[in-house]
């Protein structure tokens, strides 16, 4: 292959963190704290960090409750990567056989309909995530399900990303 024709290679994203949580209620607090710690050196604007933490918490809650059925013996695996322009967080559970409402998006929560009783009061998790991150993807291999969240993040010292 002509080196001149070779596409410019991009460095692989740097892994900032990799950890596992037991699937117990409230575990999402640990997830968001560890993710926040892992990106501390990236100098994310506070409002973007808050959004990332909320998205991670919601994805982790879903993994714990729906993916792993709140079974303490099943772990939720979380990894954090940084490409230089983008933070990626993956949240993986053992719920690969079902989509737990994530794949097609489910019913859009509507406050008026909830107040009238047409919708149940809850069901805000996916809605929140979609408004907190720049990208969200759900994949499954039939056994494990992975939610991949992406947030644009300029390198520290670079011009802030609007």
């Amino acid at each position, binding site marked *: 292959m002509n080196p001149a024709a070779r596409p410019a290679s991009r460095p692989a994203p740097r892994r900032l963190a990799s950890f596992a949580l037991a699937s*117990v*209620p*409230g*575990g*999402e*607090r*640990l997830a968001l704290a560890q993710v926040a710690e892992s990106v501390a050196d990236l100098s994310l604007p506070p*409002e973007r960090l*808050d*959004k990332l933490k*909320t998205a991670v*918490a*919601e994805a982790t*809650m879903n993994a714990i409750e729906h993916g792993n059925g709140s079974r303490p013996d099943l772990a939720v695996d979380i990894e954090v990567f940084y490409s230089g322009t983008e933070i990626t967080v993956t949240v993986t559970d053992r719920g690969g056989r079902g989509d737990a409402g994530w794949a097609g998006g489910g019913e859009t*929560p509507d*406050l*008026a309909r*909830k*107040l009238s*009783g047409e919708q*149940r*009061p*809850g*069901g*805000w*998790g996916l*809605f*929140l995530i979609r*408004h907190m991150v720049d990208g969200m993807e759900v994949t499954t291999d039939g056994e494990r399900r992975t939610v991949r969240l992406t947030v644009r993040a300029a390198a520290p010292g670079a011009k802030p990303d609007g």
Partner: protein
Amino acid sequence: MDKSTTSVGVRMADGQTSVIDIKGEVTAASEPALMSAYEEAERQGARRLVLNFSELEYMNSGGIGMLVTLLVRANRHRQPLAAYGLSDHYREIFELTRLDEAIAIYGDERSALAGQAGHGQTGRSG
């Protein structure tokens, strides 16, 4: 971490308005504490309610659902709800979910009480 770390207090701020002080987190597990606080406010004879979020540390989608449940009950009893003390992040979440259209949002307690006294209906202010 399977128990709510929500601390809730209720106080009468004026003759008709109860303030529910919320400390810690608001999640689905907070429902017993918050509903108990609401019932206490009713016992106090509150016709209006103000939620104090100034010591809120964390709220998730379960907590938002719980607030919707609280709203349903308050609406049923024609009790306007207001709130103050939300951080910018949670204020944005209130806007995204349109909770700010059902719960009047204020910057501080004084504004919230004045707003509740002056308005029978909810509305965004402060």
